[in-house]
């Protein structure tokens, strides 16, 4: 079911928001746990809050009131966002059982738009990972192939939509964590422009990169979600006061005449041939509806991963210093002094990948290395961003792969962090530049694994990106 189908069905009383919520909870109960398919996408259910909201929507419908855009739509929330009444763990033992004292702005906005929030979704610990295998609460399985990863770090958010446990969900994307799992699970995942969506209530990983965005089953629903989420928030100093566009209305505009750039650097060695063929087919489809498809160059692409892993880990090492056993979360027992309490708490509470990134980030920021690593990476970030700004003078959107391979097997890359980081090769540059991006399903491999295609747009030009995404989606039918 799409967002509009659910809203219409509730408005014309063929169903109720309560019935829709119960159906989704029933599916979660049957399939998400170890007695079902053991997908493990949800970490907590917020039944009481969801059913109270559903009752409010049903009362509105009974009175014949105009229903808000997400009326009765079941939505799941990645567990790095705060939602009162449910624990916020960030996939970490250090926050096990933590009950946040306020709602994230995006949580408030979704409920104000009528969404029924079903619960909190599994993710890599502190959103650090590309496979969801770094969750302290156990991995998520890909609903399309249960022996494979759903991608990460928003693996639960992608899997829950793919398994029809919810109609849309929220994820976060720091280096690819929405777009890559969307591709692996065969759903739509959108990275809005940096500053477009509030991050108040997001547990921070890397503040100059972290973004909140939606998952949905189709491009139109993603546009509807963005129209609810976008906008200035006085509680987030990095949110933009630019007026959001009419993202849903823009979808009516035809794409003929749009200039589509295809960056040569995204089609090199290491790209799975079946993915390459699927993207080329999608590009043929865009030509067929009147787009001008042309080659472009983003010459610094190969430096995006090393740049990202310096900047993201440096910022993470600072952000994660707040987890010290004093104000919230875990505190190590039986420790006699304050400094030992800090160290013991953090050793017990953080998983291996989080420690690895804190160490790397601390190293990169430490005396004698700051210029060589952190400053150098910030300079290369400028070059990567200039690549995009120059390209967008010639084209209106960029189309590329989003993952080098389809979903891989659970455990396939857990022993080699560099191999795991290379998963992000097509996603991190857009993250560093702050531009918007979306992953749209575009067929599947012979083995039946979903393939995603990425559309990247100018800063604050989600409208054009969504139109191209919709044209690709329409070409799949």
């Amino acid at each position, binding site marked *: 079911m799409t967002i509009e189908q659910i809203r219409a069905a509730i408005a014309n009383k063929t169903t109720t928001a309560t019935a829709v919520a119960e159906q989704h909870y029933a599916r979660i109960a049957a399939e998400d746990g170890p007695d079902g398919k053991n997908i493990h996408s949800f970490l907590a259910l917020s039944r009481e809050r969801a059913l109270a909201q559903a009752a409010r929507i049903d009362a509105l419908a009974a009175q014949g009131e105009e229903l808000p855009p997400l009326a009765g739509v079941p939505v799941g929330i990645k567990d790095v966002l705060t939602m009162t009444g449910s624990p916020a763990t960030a996939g970490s033992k250090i926050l096990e059982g933590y009950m946040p004292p306020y709602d994230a702005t995006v949580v408030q906005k979704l409920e104000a738009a009528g969404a029924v929030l079903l619960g909190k979704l599994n993710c890599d610990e502190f959103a650090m990972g590309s496979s969801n295998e770094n969750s302290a609460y156990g991995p998520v399985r890909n609903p399309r192939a249960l022996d494979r990863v759903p991608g990460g770090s928003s693996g639960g958010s992608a899997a829950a939509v793919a398994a029809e446990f919810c109609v849309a969900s929220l994820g976060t994307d720091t280096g690819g964590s929405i777009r890559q799992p969307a591709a692996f699970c065969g759903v739509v995942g959108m990275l809005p422009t940096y*500053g477009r969506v509030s991050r108040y209530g997001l547990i921070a990983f890397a503040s100059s990169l972290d973004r909140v965005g939606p998952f949905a089953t189709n491009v139109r629903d993603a546009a509807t979600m963005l129209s609810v989420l976008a906008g200035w928030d006085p509680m987030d100093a990095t949110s933009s*006061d630019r007026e959001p566009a009419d993202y849903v209305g823009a979808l009516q505009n035809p794409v003929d005449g749009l200039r589509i750039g295809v960056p040569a650097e995204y089609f090199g060695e290491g790209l799975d041939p079946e993915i390459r063929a699927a993207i080329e087919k999608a590009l043929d489809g865009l030509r067929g509806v009147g787009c001008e498809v042309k080659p472009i160059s983003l010459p610094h692409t190969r430096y995006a991963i*090393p740049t990202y892993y310096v900047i993201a880990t440096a910022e993470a090492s600072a952000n994660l210093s707040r987890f010290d056993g004093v104000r919230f979360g875990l*505190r190590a027992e039986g420790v006699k002094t304050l400094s030992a309490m800090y*160290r013991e708490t953090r050793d017990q509470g953080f998983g291996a990948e989080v*420690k690895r990134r804190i*160490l790397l980030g601390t*190293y990169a920021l430490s005396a004698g290395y700051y210029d060589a690593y952190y400053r150098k990476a910030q300079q290369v970030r*400028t070059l990567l961003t200039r690549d995009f700004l120059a390209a967008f003078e010639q084209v209106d959107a960029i189309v590329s792969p989003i993952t080098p391979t389809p979903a891989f097997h659970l455990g396939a890359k857990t022993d080699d962090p560099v191999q795991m980081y290379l998963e992000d090769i097509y996603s991190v540059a857009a993250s560093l530049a702050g531009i918007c991006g979306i992953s749209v399903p575009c067929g599947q491999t012979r083995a039946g694994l979903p393939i995603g295609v990425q559309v990247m747009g100018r800063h604050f030009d989600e409208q054009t990106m969504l139109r191209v995404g919709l044209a690709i989606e329409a070409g799949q039918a």
Partner: protein
Amino acid sequence: MAEDAAVTTEVVLRVAELANLDLKAEEVPRMQRDLNAILGHIAQLNELDTTGVPAMAQVGQMLGAEAELTGEALRADTVRPSLDRKAVMAAAPETDGRFFKVPKVIER
């Protein structure tokens, strides 16, 4: 950032100390191996001459006048309710309801 700047066990322990991480002895060799592998990959950045290239800390710097995106925009300085103290203190590992309690600070 030379390729030969291999991270030694001592450096791993020193960085862990800076980061307030109390690594177990068995964690150290794996972290050392991984840090060296990742730093080896990062060394590619040395291929680029970045003389005179400005450092980019925030996206807004690249977009001209967007102060918000550089984290420089401030909201109006008005009095507003803060979070409920009870709700905040309820999440603390140890508290008397007004203060956070911690183990002994002076270590002697």
